[in-house]
């Protein structure tokens, strides 16, 4: 039931969103929405913290940008870029899932920076520090409206696909691994294999989002592959709340809206974001979705209490 309501809210958001935010902002929200929801599969459902998701986002953005620059059509560039990040995620994931906890974080983090430096040094292909510029949107999605519809359709496709994964038996296995990995191993599941699957599902969808990202500003800035971006991705996911499927989307909307607002006011806006990060971690660990849920529960219990009191009064009167 709860999921039904949140999906209705999502559809409403897709219709209302373009009127609330500028085109570049709302499309960025949807694109990072894919990133955060897919990262949640790994972070929230499987309980693996990867600090290298910008690697897949950036690499895929570069691949699709380069293909578009090379004259390939968009419907070829997106699948190939996504496939690219799938292959890379299998390769990197193979080494990373061997380790757990802190070591896993260190490894994914270091791989992230490895790809950053490759992009940084390989100037002829990636444009180095200036980023990859001059990518043009195909004519059929060139207006704001068509581009929004295109992004929204891709977003819905990704969300439905991820929802199917989460509700499938595979999703249950992920949860089992999060709750008790040694139990899962004992029952006969190959934990490493499923961790790898979870890692590459998250990374592939992050890659899909990356391949769409090129289209917003017609460029790939190099900081999209920097490790700071990975931190932002983790924050967006946690800020929304890893407890629910669509929770991370709230985090994305909040994060992008806040950073857009603050970056206009003050050049040193990351300072404010840092303070918000710290406050969220210290005081609102469940993220926005849990906060809302708690408020909702409180409201419910208050109204229930008043009902109950009235019942008592009524019985007394009788």
């Amino acid at each position: 039931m709860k999921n039904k309501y949140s999906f209705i809210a999502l559809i409403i958001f897709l219709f209302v969103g373009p009127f609330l935010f500028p085109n570049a902002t709302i499309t960025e929200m949807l694109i990072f929405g894919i990133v955060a929801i897919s990262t949640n599969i790994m972070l929230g459902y499987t309980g693996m913290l990867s600090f290298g998701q910008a690697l897949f986002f950036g690499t895929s953005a570069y691949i699709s940008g380069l293909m578009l620059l090379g004259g390939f059509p968009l419907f070829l560039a997106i699948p190939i870029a996504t496939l690219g990040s799938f292959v890379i995620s299998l390769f990197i994931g193979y080494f990373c899932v061997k380790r757990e906890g802190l070591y896993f974080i260190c490894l994914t983090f270091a791989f992230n920076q490895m790809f950053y430096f490759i992009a940084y040094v390989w100037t002829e292909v990636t444009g180095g520090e200036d980023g990859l510029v001059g990518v043009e949107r195909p004519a059929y999605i060139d207006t704001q409206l068509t581009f929004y519809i295109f992004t929204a359709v891709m977003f819905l496709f990704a969300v439905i696909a991820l929802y199917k994964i989460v509700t499938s038996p595979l999703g249950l296995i992920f949860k089992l691994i999060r709750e008790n990995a040694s139990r899962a191993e004992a029952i006969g599941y190959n934990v490493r294999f499923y961790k790898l699957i979870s890692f590459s599902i998250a990374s592939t969808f992050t890659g899909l989002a990356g391949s769409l990202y090129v289209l917003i500003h017609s460029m790939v800035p190099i900081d999209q592959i920097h490790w700071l971006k990975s931190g932002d991705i983790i924050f967006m996911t946690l800020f929304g709340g890893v407890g629910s499927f669509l929770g991370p989307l709230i985090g994305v909307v909040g994060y992008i809206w806040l950073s857009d607002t603050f970056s206009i006011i003050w050049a040193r806006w990351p300072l404010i974001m840092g303070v918000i990060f710290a406050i969220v971690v210290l005081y609102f660990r469940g993220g926005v979705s849990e906060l809302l849920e708690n408020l909702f529960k409180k409201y419910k219990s208050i109204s229930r209490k008043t009902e109950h009191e009235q019942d008592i009064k009524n019985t007394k009167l009788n």
Partner: protein
Amino acid sequence: MTFLIISQILNGLGLGMLYALVGVGLTLILGVLNIPNFAHGVLYALGAYLAFTIANVTGSFYFAMFLSPLLVVLVGFILESQGVRRLYHAHHDYQLLFLFACALIIQEIIIIIWGPIGFSLLAPPSLSGAVDLGFLIYPKYRLVLICFAFFMIVCLYLFLTKTNLGAILRAGIENRDMVKVLGINVNVVFLYTFGLGAYLAGLAGALSAPIMGLTPSMGLDILPICFVVVVVAGLGSIPGAIIAGILIGLSQGAATIWFPEATNVVIYVMMGLTIIFRPQGLFGVR
């Protein structure tokens, strides 16, 4: 050519000593506190910037080298006691995010105070100039740096192996719960460990200032290197971190001779080779 090679190897050794210092600091914090310290890089940067200001205000380079790491320790104490301490029971996600937030905050504060433009801190006259080693003429400061960093590493080693607190720290890395059971106040141990880690980061930052200069992004750049040191060393191995740091510095020095563009990538090549051939790290146990 041989001169070039020797001088690059010495450069690499100097770099490696710095990496070893920061890497050991991170290893201590990772091992004892079991948290990923993403603020380690900015502590390094803070050490360098504080040294720059102190040296300019007081005019004494040596005093700056002495005081700035201690101020960084103070910042480390504040981070640990006000934030990290509340998160020991939380998931790694939240510890990481908190320290990431601290990194952003300190990074931006550095830019607000010192501005976005880089500086250079000159070594004092007694340490500048070059030394004739007979076969090679080499900058004096770099040579002193190598010796001093080596001295610090020896001190650290003696501290960890010969003192009581050092033994507790090593025990904490091995088995944290057992240390608690033995009636040791872990909160104090954690505080000191974080302080020691911060000291090493700040010291390395201050020492690096005359060689590499000061840029606001120096903290963000050193952090991945620290983590690579930890990965190559094996999680929680202090001698491993020292050797891995020096190896990485040396390989960077070597790369400067033959592939100057690849100096930053070679670090990750080292890491890649390590995890392919020895996934637990050079000195890792499991």
